[in-house]
């Protein structure tokens, strides 16, 4: 099995699907000859031509709006938003149009667009190249929100996303693009969207994470183990739909939860998870759920590591929960 990083896995998934389905079109800034600023679309224009891997004018609203039109007409566009921070000019197209087309047309017009975008900090990107804006999409009914943490998942989930009929915001943890390496099957495979993965089983405490924070949590788990703490780590993989069953089963087992999210704390996805756990498993809880999150400030340039949840902060959160 070849070893790949996330960039290569995404590239591989795009290549497989484009070869199989000529309705798939990639749109974006610098996605053609350059292969994208992170090189995720590298070589695709060469193989499939400039009509299927299209360098667009510098306009996220234009890229999103035309992608929606293409999808309505029967194509399967996979637009790339160069950074999640630059999506906002397309916000109206995504939130009011893409997300609602199926519903407002009574199911007549599905809108199968997979919006790929690198997100998150830790690359010295300051506040315009670091944002984790998943909560906006989760708060928008009609969008699926998928966030892989590793190459294997990235390929399987992206292939699945491109083969279903709903719009997907596919957020790629750019900090892990090259850092996360792993075995990835060469051929075709898909992973079910909406199925979490238990990364490590444990009995003392449940740690919930997604995207790059899965790696931070793994680091924290290693430290915790040295202190005799046996934690269970769940990689959510998909926020919408959410695998609530796997989460609840774990909470019922451990009775304690730490949630790690890179996005700011207020009204973030962690808050939603706490509400859901309260609804489904309040009586299993032995301690208040702890959130380890980014701060409610814009993402800073110099102090990016102080902003990001660190393994230490996750570990401190675990101790707090256990010592309650």
């Amino acid at each position, binding site marked *: 099995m070849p070893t790949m990083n996330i960039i290569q896995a995404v590239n591989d998934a795009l290549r497989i699907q484009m070869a199989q389905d000529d309705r798939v079109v990639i749109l974006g800034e610098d996605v053609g000859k350059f292969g994208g600023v992170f090189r995720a679309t590298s070589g695709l224009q060469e193989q499939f031509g400039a009509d299927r891997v299209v360098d667009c004018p510098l306009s996220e609203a234009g890229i999103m709006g035309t992608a929606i039109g293409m999808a309505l007409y029967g194509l399967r566009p996979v637009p790339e938003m160069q950074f999640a921070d630059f999506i906002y000019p397309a916000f109206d197209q995504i939130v009011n149009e893409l997300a609602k087309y199926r519903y407002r047309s009574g199911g007549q017009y599905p809108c199968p667009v997979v919006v790929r975008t690198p997100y998150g900090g830790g690359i010295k990107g300051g506040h315009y190249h670091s944002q984790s804006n998943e909560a906006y999409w989760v708060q928008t009914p009609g969008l699926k929100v998928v966030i892989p943490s590793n190459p294997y998942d990235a390929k399987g989930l992206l292939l699945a996303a491109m083969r279903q009929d709903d719009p997907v915001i596919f957020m790629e943890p750019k900090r892990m693009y090259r850092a996360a390496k792993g075995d990835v099957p060469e051929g075709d495979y898909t992973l079910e969207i909406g199925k979490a993965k238990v990364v490590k089983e444990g009995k003392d405490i449940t740690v919930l994470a997604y995207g790059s924070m899965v790696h931070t949590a793994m680091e924290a788990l290693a430290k915790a183990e040295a202190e005799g703490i046996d934690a269970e780590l769940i990689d959510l993989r998909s926020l919408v739909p959410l695998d609530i069953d796997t989460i609840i089963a774990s909470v019922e087992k451990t009775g304690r939860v730490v949630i790690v999210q890179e996005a700011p704390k207020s009204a973030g996805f962690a808050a939603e998870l706490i509400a859901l756990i309260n609804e489904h498993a309040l009586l299993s809880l032995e301690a208040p759920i702890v959130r380890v999150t980014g701060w409610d400030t814009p993402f800073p*340039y110099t102090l990016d590591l102080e902003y990001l949840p660190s393994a230490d902060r996750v570990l401190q959160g675990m101790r707090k929960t256990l010592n309650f």
Partner: protein
Amino acid sequence: MPEISDADLKALYRTMVMTRVFDQRMITLQRQGRLGFYLGSLGEEAASVGSAFALWAEDWIFPCYREQGAYLWRGVTVQEMAHQCYGNGLDYTKGRQMPVHYSFRHKNIVSISSPLTVQLPQAVGAAWAAKLRKDPIITLTYLGEGASSQGDFHVGLNFAGVYKTPTVFFLRNNGWAISTPREVQTASENFAMKANAYGFEGVLVDGNDLLAVIVATKRAADKARSGGGPTLIEAVTYRVGGHSTSDDPSVYRKDEEVKAWEAKDPIARFQRFLAKKGLWTPEWELEIQEACKAEVLAAAEAAEKAPAPAPETIFDDVFSDIPRFLQEQRAELMDSLQQSKEAR
């Protein structure tokens, strides 16, 4: 030929040289791993210095991110710029923004945003406010030709046209938006003509000709100041370096193209002009080159030595005060850092 004193002509030249020296040094520092990132303006010095020269110091600048020449002309020091690039505790933006994202309120230069073209409607708004207050201030905003594809370009020009705001739009057409050639941005013959659709004048100018840039900008500024409304200037120039230090232009553009443009270098061109006037000598060149290099070197060294912003400053300036929830988060961070320190 505009009326410019010999002293100013020489100062203009020196500022272009300083701009280049600064850019080159910052790019070298980035390559050495001492600076996180940098965006140079190599080959575009005439566009930035010349346009800024045509303004009054009271006029507001809404920059994009290749305008270091304009800041230097305004009197921003290389030390102030170096602190920002290093994101240290002496940086006015408190280490919060990536390198090149300056903010110099004392020079009427607003804070730079990475998202492109957002500054256009803002520049129109500020100009509009000045007009409402009857201040003789105009605003000048910069953008690249790629940025003209954003909705905010059309929104900004439309408002400026409708309300006849004293705004100058200065579009640097440097041929490329990262890897995307100019042809992908528009099917128009040029960018200047787009102003016509919004009811005002568009001007095409050779962006590598300092004097031509000055004339065009000065005309637009005078017109704006006297109630004549906005102008869109398209300065045709070339991005000689990479888009940024993260870029590899060899993947998408040919060396010959770059070579051809290097021959049109705006600094060399202005140098020839000054030499003909007897204002330039090789000795003076050596003198200013050395002075610029020494100043930039010292500024970079001082910036490198300055301490980083303190961790608790993350929570400053989110609001005018620090509300309770942020005070709690600040305490949480400091406590966490303390715990980590003790564990070590």
